[in-house]
């Protein structure tokens, strides 16, 4: 029985030491003092000078089409300004999301970064004073005339980072995107559907018709968890309309337990119960769901315009739904990540010139040529009939009619987690629509308390 003694004699002083050190460490001030958000910004100029400048740029343009466009744009910018060298660091969206925070909080951050909109990323960066407000450059480069105001709003915050869509612009976006309804024309013809649905009610009726043919009515795969945001956001936007959803996400009014929010959840659960969604969707990847839709195994698919290249097929169409009583289509989407300037950069003028070059008017031709949807689609762009033409048409109409609702995960820093987990529970029938909405509301209410 003397055996344990030796270990104890050694561990007790060790634990005491750790506890003492911990107490000392805990007396230290907060890990990061608040950076000054109100520092005055110097005069701005279109002139990038002639001295040698290296701009470090972090982007997330890793997919084939956009990666090629980015390379061409960077090369063209270097030809225009030979004294500016672009040092490009390209990471996938998820990798960028996890590493950008660390990079920005260091002493030597990149000059230009792509920041995700909403409270979790851009809001946190603005709050910590890591991004440079760009109102002055917006005036200099005429961005307010070029970009639709609703899209600039998405890239804006109050200077304290607490109010999204506030007064200060923190970046502009390069590409546009929409979550919409892809449909397979031959599957629809087989089910006797002549025109694609225009409302949620029509879609539900069409799903029933496709079910009768034995095909999967609505392809869905949610093992990656984020497609849950797209499905719920798509249905919610098409039921509640733009104003309601936008106010809710930017925390200005409304509750997640309101009638239209519960209705959207009910709709999805009803589709699941009726066997309209891919069976076992929670264990199927979105890539698999897209591939099987592409092979004609399902009639409809709700996902983003970024699958345009994958679903490039004359049999595939793309549309969005109109909320009851509304004049125009409304769906979730908006724009790619914002191109922003960090507050510690020493080359703000060159950074702004770069952003204007790769995301502004001069970038559209290169973007379109490589199969991307520029954030502002020029009237001259008329792709041949097919899914690309559908997407360009829908995006142009919906963005001009101001029918785009923001991604729901912008709502709070933890909303991505809350919504994705709850969406899986909803589809699995483990949460009632009311309980699902209460979960979202609890997260929303907690953030409302802490952010104010």
């Amino acid at each position, binding site marked *: 029985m003397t055996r344990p003694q030796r270990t104890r004699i050694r561990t007790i002083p060790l634990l005491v030491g750790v506890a003492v050190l911990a107490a000392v460490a*805990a007396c230290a001030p*907060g890990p990061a*003092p608040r950076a000054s958000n109100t520092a005055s910004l110097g005069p701005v100029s279109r002139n990038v000078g002639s001295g040698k400048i290296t701009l470090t740029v972090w982007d997330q343009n890793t997919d084939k089409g956009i990666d090629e466009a980015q390379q061409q744009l960077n090369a063209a910018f270097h030809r225009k300004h030979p004294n500016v060298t672009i040092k490009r660091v390209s990471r996938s969206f998820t990798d960028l999301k996890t590493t950008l925070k660390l990079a920005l909080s260091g002493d030597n951050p990149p000059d230009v970064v792509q920041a995700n909109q909403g409270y979790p990323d851009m809001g*946190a960066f603005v709050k910590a004073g890591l991004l440079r407000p760009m109102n002055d450059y917006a005036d200099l480069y005429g961005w307010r005339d070029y970009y639709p105001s609703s899209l600039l709003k998405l890239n804006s915050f109050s200077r304290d980072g607490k109010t999204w869509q506030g007064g200060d612009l923190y970046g502009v976006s390069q590409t546009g995107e929409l979550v919409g309804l892809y449909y397979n024309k031959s599957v629809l013809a087989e089910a006797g559907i002549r025109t694609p649905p225009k409302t949620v009610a029509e879609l539900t009726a069409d799903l029933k018709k496709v079910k009768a043919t034995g095909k999967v009515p609505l392809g869905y795969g949610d093992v990656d968890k984020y497609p849950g945001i797209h499905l719920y956001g798509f249905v919610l936007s098409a039921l509640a309309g733009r104003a309601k959803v936008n106010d809710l996400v930017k925390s200005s009014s409304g509750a997640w337990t309101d009638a239209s929010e519960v209705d959207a959840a009910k709709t999805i659960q009803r589709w699941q119960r009726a066997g309209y969604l891919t*069976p*076992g969707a929670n*264990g199927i990847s979105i890539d698999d769901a897209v591939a099987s839709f592409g092979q004609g195994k399902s009639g409809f698919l709700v996902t983003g315009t970024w699958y345009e290249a994958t679903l490039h097929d004359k049999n595939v169409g793309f549309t969005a739904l109109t909320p009851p009583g509304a004049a125009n289509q409304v769906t979730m989407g908006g724009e790619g990540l914002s191109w922003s300037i960090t507050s510690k950069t020493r080359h703000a003028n060159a950074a702004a010139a770069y952003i204007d070059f790769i995301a502004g008017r001069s970038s559209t031709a290169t973007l379109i040529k490589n199969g991307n949807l520029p954030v502002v689609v020029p009237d001259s762009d008329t792709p041949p009939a097919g899914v690309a033409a559908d997407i360009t048409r829908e995006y142009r109409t919906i963005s001009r009619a101001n029918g785009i609702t923001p991604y729901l995960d912008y709502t709070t820093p933890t909303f*991505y987690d809350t919504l994705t*987990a709850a969406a899986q529970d909803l589809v699995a029938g483990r949460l009632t629509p009311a309980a699902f909405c209460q979960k979202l509301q609890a997260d929303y209410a907690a953030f409302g308390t802490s952010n104010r």
Partner: protein
Amino acid sequence: MTVSRTRRPAPVPTGAGRRAGRRTRGRRRSRVAYLYILPAFAVFAVFLGYPFLQTIQYSFYDWDGLSAATWAGVANYAAVVTDPTLRAAFGHALVLMVFYAALPIAIALLLTTLISRAHRLRAMSVYRTVLFVPQVIASVVVATIWVSIYSPDGLLNEGLRLIGLGSLARVWLADYSLALVAVGFVGTWLNVGLCLVLFLSGVGNIPPVLYEAARIDGAGPVREFFAITLPSLRGQVAVALTLTVTSALKTFDLVYVTTSGGPGNSTTVPGFEAYHRAFGTGQVGSAAAVAIALTVVIMIVTALIHRLNPKEVG
């Protein structure tokens, strides 16, 4: 419980002079000893000690990782106990211990007795290597392989259909009650090889005379196992337990790749929660508290297992 006993002075030789002389010599010797451990300690302090203390500090703050932190007291630790998601994460880690530790050790012991009876097996090292292979493959690769095995038209479901059990086929990683078991089973598959290699080397050290004696006394294979093999392998079992239990508690990669904690939150584990809160949702304080709580749990469990180790006897 028995802390008082640890304070009992060690028996010392009588005679004040002898005692004093011994003490100074001992002290000088121990000072030199500190110099020897200094390099190792410096590495530990810089790469483990300091970050550990920093993590403890973070755990008492409410911090998004970027802007100013606010003092949170023990709220983050309270949340580890009260937040149902975090409580569930620790519960899942306990369930995984069965699959990562208990099952592999039981299976490996069984295999050890079988294999060790095949005296002087040819190409033994080849089998040993093959069984150890899962440990060598990068865990992301292992996880990806199992995602495809568990997929709707994967190996497992196709196998079930082939033998007429198609009704059991399901999307394993999407099943709320089975996803955790599915992830745990990957851990079993991973750890059996490790345990087996440990046990086989242990069995090699048991004097064959013991088995001969047992057989002469009329012991069957079962009796032989419990009377000779198992007691002799106590050290190896303790090592295997430490390694596998720790791997169960700190598991992250398998969950990250296979399910991201889903469906719902049914497969989250503390390691995943710590990562996700720190880098995903900007809750650095909470992430640090989870990490510290996990460290404490691992220390306690390892200390308990340490008691099994026969080297400590005496």
